[in-house]
């Protein structure tokens, strides 16, 4: 390899056990199920896998962003009433040059998967990136 990776040996975290939906027995035809944190998270990761488009991956590593703890379920904030979603992600190393790409791919994914009324806000977690301001 000529250039070498910026972060050659990232810490890989075990995938966290998914929170299982408890209210799946909701059979009433007209109850509204609002879009929530878990659903956004699922949009970003699992439900898509079945459809040929891969998980969003860290552009530098073969691990998915979840395994690297770049994105976690808690980093997603969503308010269905106000049509607002904010995703905060944490790059693996401070000077990660891929932060922009990660941010963009998350944005595109959400834009394609959420109703157009949503405002999507992607942020870099405070203090985790050298050029924090440049990203937003």
């Amino acid at each position, binding site marked *: 390899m000529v250039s070498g990776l910026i972060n050659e040996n990232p810490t890989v975290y075990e995938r966290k056990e998914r929170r299982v939906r408890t209210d799946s027995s909701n059979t009433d*035809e007209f109850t*509204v*199920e609002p879009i929530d944190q878990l*659903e956004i998270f699922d949009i970003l990761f699992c*439900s*898509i896998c079945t459809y040929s488009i891969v998980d969003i991956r860290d552009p530098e590593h073969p691990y998915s962003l979840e395994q690297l703890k770049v994105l976690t379920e808690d980093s997603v904030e969503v308010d269905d009433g106000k049509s607002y979603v904010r995703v905060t992600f944490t790059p693996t190393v401070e000077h990660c040059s891929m932060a922009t790409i990660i941010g963009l791919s998350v944005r595109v994914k959400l834009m394609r*998967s959420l*109703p*157009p009324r949503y405002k999507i806000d992607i942020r870099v977690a405070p203090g985790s990136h050298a050029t924090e301001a440049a990203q937003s």
Partner: protein
Amino acid sequence: MAALNNLTEHLESFVDVTRSPSHHADSLKAIASSLEKGVLSINQLVVEMDMYLTTTDDVIRARGILLLAEMLNHLKEKPLDTAVVQSLAGFFTAKLAEWKSVRGALTGCLALIKRKDVAGLVTATDAEAMAKAMIKSVQVQSLALHDRKICFELLECLLEQYPEAMINMGNLIVYATCEAIDGEKDPPCLMIAFHIVELLTQLFPSPSSSPLAAEASDLFDIISCYFPLHYTHTKGDEASIPREELSRRLSLAISSTPFFEPYAIPLLLEKLSSSLTVAKVDSLRCLNDCVVKYGVNRMKKHYKDLWPALKDALYSFTETDLSFGLESLTSPGFEMGEIHREAVDLLQRLVKQDISFLGLVVDDPRVNMISDTISRYSQFEDMPDTSKLEILVVSQILCVSARASVESCNKIFETFFFRLMNTLGIVEKVSSGDLVHNENSTASIKLYHGGLHLCIELLTASKDLIPSSEESSSTPWCSIVNRFSVSLIEAFTSVVQSSYDECSADAYLGVKGLLAMGMLCGGSSPVSKSEFEKILKTLTSIITAQRAKTVKWELALKALICMGSFIDRYSEREKAMSYMGVVVENLVSLACSSHCSLPYPMILEATSEVCSTRPQYVEKMVQGFEEAFCSSFSDFYVNGNSKPIENCSQLLECVTNKLLPRVTEIDGLEKFLVHFAISMWNQIESSVVFSYDVSGREFVEAAMKTMRQIVGVALVDSQNSIIQKAYNVISSSTLPAMESIPLTFAALEGLHRDLSTRDELILSLFASVIIGASPKASLPDVKSLIKLFMVSFLKGYIPAAQALGSIVNKLGISSDCSLEEACDIIFHQSFASGNNISSDDTDKTICGSETLLSKICLGFYGSVDLQTRAITGLAWIGKGLLMRGDGRVNEIALVLMECLKSSNSSGNALHPSAMKHAADAFLILMSDSEVCLNRKFHAVIRPLYKQRFFSITVPILESLIVNSQTPLSRTMLHVALAHVISNVPVTVILDNTKKLLPMILEGLSALSVDAVDKETLFSLLLVLSGTLTDIKGQQSVSDNAHKIIECLVKLTSYRHLMVVRETAIQCLATLLELPHGRIYPFRREVLQAVTKALDDPKRRVREEAIKCRQAWTSITSRS
């Protein structure tokens, strides 16, 4: 000569290496078939091939030899001349020396050696020569994979088929084997190689003068380096051999001869101490094999090293929690890992084979510490994990050793049981008639959970070792248990009784202990009859004393069931008597009395579960239920309170759900059930006044269900007796008066639901009997019955209509009324009676509509209510006719369709609700019913009846839809069509996709207007999705793509049913399989709709929408 010409051609093509492998295979096949048919003899072939076999061109010669070898392979079954075989064997043996044609030579040798039970075998001398040649000139490990495999196979076959010849070769063959195997790495070859070692060791079993004894060390070195097996390349090769299989072979090879013992056991013990799970498991398995094969004498010297290693393996499991759940009552109560399981097996094997091994176990300090551990904590929950582990492992060690043999069991009981009893403070007691109660002794009992667990495990483990015959009752362990049995049972009883609801451990251990004592059955059981009955009494009293479903209740019930089925399995007559007396009679009498603190459904559950363990109990139970039913029912109509009638319906439900499914398993159950049904009728007959409310309605439902099913399972004779009984009841009631009501419009118009509740019950039950009866059963007085049912369904009793449908469906030749007559009564009689009320004669031409029934349906006379009832009734009658394939159903269909027209023959449209009923009548006609007219109730079903109806009605419905004028009639026609289409097998739809697709699409849009039709809409949508995915439908789908997409897009926002939206979106995604050019123009439209669906209130729809959108976006970006 043509054959020979062809032969040359084939030979040329095979020998030519530049041709493709398929060419080679073809020519091989051609030559082989001519050889098999006898057109060509092997001699001729050899002569023909002379040039190829002797040429100096190495490549061609190799191919030639291979061809000859392959031919022999094909002729394995064909008798050949001995001389030919001999010369061929000589030829191939000689060719082994030429490395260039070694493949052919090996294949040829193998083919010859493999010949079995046919004329022309290789002689032993030839075989020996062949083996020698191979050993001399073939370097196995320098060959390619396939050739190596053939080598090993050849060696294997030689060893298997010519053992004498191989023994003659002595050392040579052992050397050769070592050399051949050394360094082999390929699993398929190793499989054979390990087998070769096994065969080889079988050749030389005697210890003296065996060439193996000297070579054992070398040979073992060669195979032991594979242990424990580990695959480095696991992926890619699906055809390869699973690790387990190869490992099993290796283990067999290692354990194959006692000569390996000095080398094998140290190696295995060393591997056992490794931290690798695989190594441990494999060593334990292999040790197990070795213990069997090497024999006690050789193993004895290793015991000292073996026991600590084995103990470590036993302690290796991590799970320390004992489950106190219901499911573990009959199992050890904890999970065993793989290592643990193998270790347990090995321990049992060792103790079984040599009782002296038990000495090590018994003297082990760690095992002996157990009493201290036990007495340190009284509750299991309080113990630290280490103590839990200690208790679980030690109890397992002791149990496994005890289970191994009677002697080991005796020894364990002698050494440990006394100590255990001491720790628990349980003293010996002698049962002498009445039990002597010694207050002091019970007070000093210290019920440590750990001790109880160990005690229960020991008792459970030893239950299979009870001597079967009376004379050997002096078995020491039995007498030990016998001395303690009274106090043990008392101890367990007190544990259960002292337990609270929240502490399930007490209840669990107590019940499990009682169960363990109760299972000690057999000729000379240490538990006497009176003690056994005491156990049963205790468990039964636990069941009856509860007020709600608790853990204790469920445990006790499960224990009773276990004991019941155990008694049945070992057919213990005396115990069965006790069981019957104590448990069954007690519970059954509870069911009868119904004055008990236990809720009635729980009594029923307990009774039915317990009694289903043995046919005799079931018999008793049905009798008890019958009694219970009679007493509750009479209690109800005498006193009029609703509690007994609720009990009755629960009882009937229990009969339907628990007993009826088992009717084929239990002999004689049918008879009791029929008796039950008849006494139901008797009760109803004797009840004079009868009125009910809501709970009564439930009772009628339950009674109908039970009656239907009992009649359904009963034999024809029994059916006849039930029918006769029921008919007598009917005739004695006021119902026959209804038969005299003339089937005229004026009389029918005056009808209301004015039956007394008793009559209604009788009528419903009678209808159920008719529904369940088989065609062979004889119905009395069918004509008046038909009239009775006609009148009652026009009064609004649906079961009557279903019964009528069953009658016309099953009416046979044997009955006193033919089908013709029956239909005559149903459709025409009113006219025959001369009541001509028809005022307007224009409709006479319309098929079938001249009958009274159809006139009512068409609304000529009477209220809407009467009309809808008539339509529903007509549908059920039609269903009966349709299933037996009778043509009259066509008339009925026509009448029903007439009802759906916007303006029918009388010029005015029907009432909307009548139309709705007429449309739904098609659902009744086409769908499978749970309630009547199915296989369970002996319906006469003609094959393909649905298809026939489909082909008759669909064209008419189509043309009606085209010509319909009002939107209502159009929608209703679509509903009817949807019912027909969605109930016909999907293959029929696929055959007619072209014609049907436009109709389906139109139907979908028509049905999507109203929320009432949502279920119908969904089933129609499913039909559509079925056609989308099938190849047969694809052409017409592609032709109609624009319409389909338009329709589906509309359905993605269908408000009333989520599954419709979901399915519509899925269908849209499926459409992407169509040719790109067809669908591309619609992408904007689809994407718009799907984007809207992203905001759907339901999550599942949103998920589908995301997938669908992704898929459709990708076709746009690709272009």
